[in-house]
């Protein structure tokens, strides 16, 4: 079952990029390029925040997410740095 979320780094946690439209998750950790992490934090994507994936763009990337009253477009490569617990 972990194979679904397996990545080259051997990480077992699902990330925001693994979710399909309509799924909701809670953020566990945010990592990546410092500028990206800071921007996500500034938007309020903090640990513990509940996020819903609203849609995928026509070619499957980027993804649209909603949390509170905010909506963001994230590239999958960016969403891959956000580990989540699927609710």
């Amino acid at each position, binding site marked *: 079952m972990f194979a679904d979320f397996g990545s080259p780094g051997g990480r077992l946690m699902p990330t925001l990029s693994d979710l399909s439209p309509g799924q909701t998750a809670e953020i566990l950790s945010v990592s990546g*390029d410092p500028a990206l992490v*800071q921007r996500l934090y500034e938007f309020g994507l903090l640990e513990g925040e509940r996020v819903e994936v609203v849609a995928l763009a026509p*070619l499957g990337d980027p993804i649209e997410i909603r949390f509170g009253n905010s909506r963001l477009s994230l590239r999958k490569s*960016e969403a891959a740095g956000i580990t989540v617990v699927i609710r």
Partner: protein
Amino acid sequence: MADPITVALVGNPNAGKSTLFNALSGLRQRIGNYPGVTVEMTKGEFSADGTTVSLIDLPGTYSLAARSPDEMVAVDLLLGRRPEEPRPSVVVSIVDATNLDRHLYLTSQLLDLGVPVVVAVNMIDAAAAQGLTFNYAKLSESLGVPVVPIQANNGTGLAQLTTAIRTAAGQTAPHGPAFPVAFDQVAEQLQKELSDEIPTFLVRRAIIDIGGYTEQWLIERYGARLKSALIGARDKLATAGHAVPGVEARTRFAWVRTAVAAAVTKPAVRPVTWTDRIDNVLTNRVWGTLVFLLVMFLMFQSIFLWAKPLMDLIGSGQDTVAKGVEGAMPSGPLRALLVDGIIKGVGGVLVFLPQIMILFGFIAVLEDCGYMARAAFLMDRVMSRCGLSGKSFIPMLSSVACAIPGVMAARVIENRRDRLATILVAPLMSCSARLPVYILLIGAFIARPGSPGWLPGVVLFAMYMIGFTVAPLVALALKRTLLRGAPPVFVMELPNYRRPKFTSVLRRMGGAGWAFTLRAGTIILMAMILVWAALYFPFTDANGESYPERVEKAEDAVKENAEKLNALKEKDEKSKEEPAEGEPAPPQLTDDEKAELEKLEEAAALPDKLNGEWKRGSALGRVGLWMEPVFKPLGWDWKIGVAAMASFPAREVIVGTFGILYDVGEVDTKAIGNKNADAEAKEKVAGLTKAVQDDWSKDPVRGKYGVPVALSIMVFFALCCQCAATLAVIKRETGSWLWPSFTFVYMTALAYVGAFLTFQIGRFIVG
């Protein structure tokens, strides 16, 4: 009279900042430019009870963590570190009532600036519709600054806001949320090491913003010593459990959320909003894509269709004015400068206005209603293939109509490198000005009797494909070399949908048109006058006689003898008709009449011949002759070279120049490929086609390789940047001559190589 006060308006994008700004300052606005950056800030003024308030609209931002020189301008201005602006006496922080938590994050940063802050809570109507209720007194108490509810688009609360601003001026500055003690200690220590006048605000930012602008700036100033000090400070914080940048976000959001929780009551279940409903369709994979294609098609069609009649109107207005001046002035260099230099130049500037304003009308509507971000979302993947993002799509698409509005539309791209890459490749997209060149040459050399009927279409399509394939490739190359850098953050807000406001759309259209006319127009005009002069001087022939006078004399003679010529022509035509049975043979021309007809026909062709001789001997003509070896590998003779050079102000000029150089007089570009053009104009086009064919057939190279030469010219024009307006707009948008020069050089090189390959390969195939 109270002292005038300066107020800065700060808020997230989509907080309604511009609406508030316009509501407060009305029409008294001007644009402020800042050296070295591409940032523009609008400034306005209004008076409230005798106090003059000057208002600065800062670019929308989510945070004061500056990552580029552009973002730093706003921070420096707020700290009073821009020499050209006074430090604001009050900062107005505009926030969205439906998304208070996130917007107050920026407010909490503003509280650390040491300037009085007033919070304007905007869009209270939408918040009420979502069932939110506010206790503004409590919010003001928690934040420690005045809070005013407003509805910027109908003016609600603006009077209270102005009063709050006036009261706040001169009061003690508030304090933002308290950071962990460990952070304060680290910041204090770093401040001591920096000795001089670096504000505490920036010292703290340098610690938090890893790789940010403040860090870069301080390292440049203090060297590697500072770099290790910063790394040490961040390590210390990480061990204390307050790693950057998380420590700032957690501190501020905890503080903001406490304040909001005390002052705002939300319904237990979040109601489904209009944005939710609309996004179900518009970002849907199938429906969203369909709507997107429809919107783009509509936009594209209207740039073409709606702009066309307006452009024709400008064209005929230009002709009328030119004719009026021609009639009112004696001929001479001054009249020629006015008619062929200035009036044509002004017309050449104004003709872009319809396309620019229509496109900006669309962009304003799409941005204001929130769709622009969705369009970028849908197109992001496609554009990422050439190293760009979805935001580059609309600028690139609009460039198919015209690169000028396309380059201007690149303003929607915040990332500097992406924006530059888009601007630099936009002129490669096949714009509508290339069409006359293609049609003329295809008509003359490709659509020959005997060639397959599908060939012209295929060639035209191929010319368009050159732009569509080369532009992304060049973008990719630029992003991998010249514009390489850390990948930008593509996280983009998808704002709530809102109804666009008519007046703000009009404002955007007017602003774009004005900016183009004023700042690019002068450069375009200069380029046009320069090329006109290079083709006008010297205007005397070998015997020192003036060409313009000789042309005029010849034209007068043609007019005088027009009747005689027509009568003779008619008689000649009739004489060749087969008589009907029983009728007598038609009268034949006498020998005298024949000689007369020949003489008159020769005289009729004289003005065009003289013009050709004149332009061939002009400064530009001579340079072209001298440069012939450069054109030779492309299969061109010097005349083609001169026509190409003379078309520097605008590509389509090549058609007119061809006409003059091939002795058929000036050809109206608008008549090419236009079934509704008048008979005379059509005849001219046909005449030019024939003249080019005849001239080339006499030449050993172009006679044999007419098709490769025609293709080589077309490929050159597909890739070159013979468009002064585009270059002028690039100068305006990038704020430097470097980028237009670069664009001209790289595109000309590309065009040369493309034309060279086309001709050489074509010659090889023809054998």
